[in-house]
């Protein structure tokens, strides 16, 4: 979502870096571009004004106009100011002195609270915790059904509350959690407008009686200038401890996150990155600043790989690849692993210097579709065929084409590509053995 902001700033800085010396007019122009880029990214206008003023002040202080490295200095000043705005390090979830840990989700209607509750439960469950969900949204029709259905698919219990005694019932559910073997309680509350006095009182009462260690405000990444106003109003009434920025898989530029962090001091803790229940990431401010400036996000990529790729398997495959013993079966397994890591377009964007490539791909969806086709073709091969493609004669190829719903020429194309890859890897492997290449890391790609 941040790539457009990143593109704009990159273009501005490239222009600037082309200059031998930065003139007064250059600085003005760059700052104008920075202002427009940030406003287009939905950064709050007050924050934009502050940021531009800070950068100008520092630029003059650092005497960039007289320096021959002025352009780089301006880039660094903007980078540092952005990182400051986002806050430095990732802020982890709170812990409870005595279990259960209580987390409550609050926010405007449609910001993604219920989905986030389920995703959070999924993260905690994977870490070995035993979450209990409390459906305290008694206002939106079928909100309770929604959470129950999500809880069911995760295998996590869900408690309901009565509309007349929401706060008391939430407290009771928390009280009973430990006895039921639950160490974490996540409370879903109704969406509400920050100007709705009655609804704000209701949520104050819930938070008072639940006494959560963590009160997370869900904020839609597509929110505009109103984000600061709404978040500040929630912060004024509730002990907000963190933000969850949702719908980050849109192409919104996410200025709301920068703004709220800067205006309220509340750190962003999680990003909602897909509709799937595993689409919740820990937020790393420093990494995000790098991503905005087009430096890639290799750390997130590595983490995703670690989570989804079996390391031993990957090493074995890398070895096979170099020794040209890599078969269609290995290829198939690899496709599965890459798929688990998320959409290809997203993965490319995270690689340093690859953001541009992601854009050059005519359509990442096209790549996804191609992957699905390749998977289908391999699925239609027998194990013997996968290990030894040489046996694939005309009739076998025809059977595979029929089985996978493609044409014979598509099967042929894949076989050809695979053979070329094997040859390439054979040469590569031989070179590596002679020590002409550094050792490949245990990554399958």
């Amino acid at each position, binding site marked *: 979502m941040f790539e457009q902001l990143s593109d704009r700033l990159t273009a501005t800085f490239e222009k600037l870096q082309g200059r031998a010396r930065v003139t007064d007019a250059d600085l003005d122009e760059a700052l104008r571009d920075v202002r*427009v880029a940030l*406003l*287009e*990214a*939905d950064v709050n*206008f007050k924050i934009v004004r502050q940021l531009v003023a800070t950068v100008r002040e520092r630029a003059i202080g650092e005497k960039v106009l007289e320096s021959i490295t002025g352009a780089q200095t301006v880039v660094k000043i903007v980078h540092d100011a952005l990182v400051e705005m986002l806050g430095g390090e990732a802020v982890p979830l709170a812990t409870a002195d005595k279990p259960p840990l209580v987390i409550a989700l609050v926010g*405007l*209607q*449609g*910001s*993604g609270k219920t989905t986030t509750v389920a995703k959070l439960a999924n993260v905690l469950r994977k870490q070995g915790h035993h979450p209990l969900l409390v459906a305290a949204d008694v*206002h*939106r*029709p*079928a*909100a309770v*059904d*929604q*959470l*129950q*259905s*999500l809880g069911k*698919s995760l295998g996590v219990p869900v408690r309901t509350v009565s509309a007349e005694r929401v706060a008391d019932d939430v407290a009771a559910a928390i009280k009973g959690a430990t006895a039921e073997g639950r160490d974490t309680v996540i409370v879903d509350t109704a969406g509400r*407008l*920050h*100007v709705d006095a009655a609804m704000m009182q209701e949520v104050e009462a819930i938070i008072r009686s639940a006494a959560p260690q963590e009160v997370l405000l869900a904020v*839609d990444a*597509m*929110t*505009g*200038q*109103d*984000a600061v*106003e*709404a978040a500040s109003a929630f912060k004024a009434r509730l002990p907000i401890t963190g933000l969850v920025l949702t*719908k980050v*898989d*849109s*192409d*919104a*530029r996410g*200025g*709301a996150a920068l703004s709220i962090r800067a205006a309220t001091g509340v750190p962003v803790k999680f990003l909602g990155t897909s*509709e799937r229940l595993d689409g919740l990431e820990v937020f790393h401010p420093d990494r995000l600043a790098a991503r905005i400036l087009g430096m890639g996000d290799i750390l997130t990529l590595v983490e995703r790989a670690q989570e989804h790729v079996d390391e031993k398997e990957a090493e074995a495959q890398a070895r096979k690849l170099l020794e040209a013993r890599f078969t269609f079966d290995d290829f198939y397994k690899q496709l599965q692993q890459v798929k688990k890591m998320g959409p290809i377009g997203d993965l490319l964007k995270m690689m340093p210097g690859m953001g541009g490539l992601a854009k050059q791909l005519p*359509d990442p*969806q096209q790549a*996804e579709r191609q992957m699905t086709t390749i998977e289908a073709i391999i699925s239609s091969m027998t194990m013997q065929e996968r290990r030894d493609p040489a046996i694939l004669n005309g009739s076998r190829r025809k059977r595979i084409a029929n089985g996978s719903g493609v044409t014979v020429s598509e099967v042929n194309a894949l076989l050809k590509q695979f053979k070329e890859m094997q040859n390439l890897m054979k040469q590569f492997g031989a070179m590596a053995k002679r020590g002409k290449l550094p050792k490949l890391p245990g990554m399958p790609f």
Partner: protein
Amino acid sequence: MSIDAGLAKTRGSFLSRLFGRAADRPVTPEWLDALEETLLRSDISVSLVDSVMLQVRDVVADRKAETVPKVLAAVREALVAVLEPGERALIAGTGTPRVILVVGVNGSGKTTTAAKLAKRLRDAGETPLLAAADTFRAAAIEQLEIWAKRVEVPIVSGTPDGDPAAVVFDAVQAGIARGNTTVIADTAGRLHTKGHLMDELSKIVKVAGRARAGAPDEVLLVLDGTTGQNAIIQARQFTETAQVTGIVITKLDGTAKGGAVFAIADELKLPVKFLGVGEKAEDLVPMDPRAFVNALLPANG
């Protein structure tokens, strides 16, 4: 957006000629800054705001307008002029039942809007039928079913994880059989960046046309009023996929102003048809460009 044209419209205003002079504050640089802030704060795109401010500064410099009320009136007229064009009434449709698809990103308020629209039509003497075609989100069908009961409108529901296009098809067929005047189909929220979900939407549109030639008659894009500059991108994508015919802006009962819609009206020439201003069934009101602009740029600005 043309401030000059806006100015021309206000020139003849009887009231401003009568009462104008006494309260006329001169335009100051501070006031111009405040005006710019108000416009930016409402999520009007920075390019439109910059264009307005440039023109306003010219107009002031050329002494065509030197007082706050005069400049303000000119800006308002220019903003209204962006929203005025296009038919804001629901399209009558080329057959019966009229088919309305409600589309948009997740959490924008589609289900609620579908229900409110059904109530509006029912109150106007129509016999609408709701179609719960959001088969993806957990309990979305139940949500619309509860609303249907509340607004006393019949409903055709899909099954969870079922084919949404089939639900729309069945609902239109049911509408034909039962003689409903309009079928309002609620679809799943989808981010405009998700190719496969947008493909699904174009299939729904296609299948609606198979159920009744010429359908859908109206494709309403529901935009969350708190959305910022992403709104124009959403509108572009949904228009490309589903031939959007009108916009509904929701959640305007908070502090958000929905100014992102100016860029949409300006670029895509899509009319804003309704505004969502509350959680009750009757809180869907027809768009009034003048009232909308006045809310965004109050008289004392």
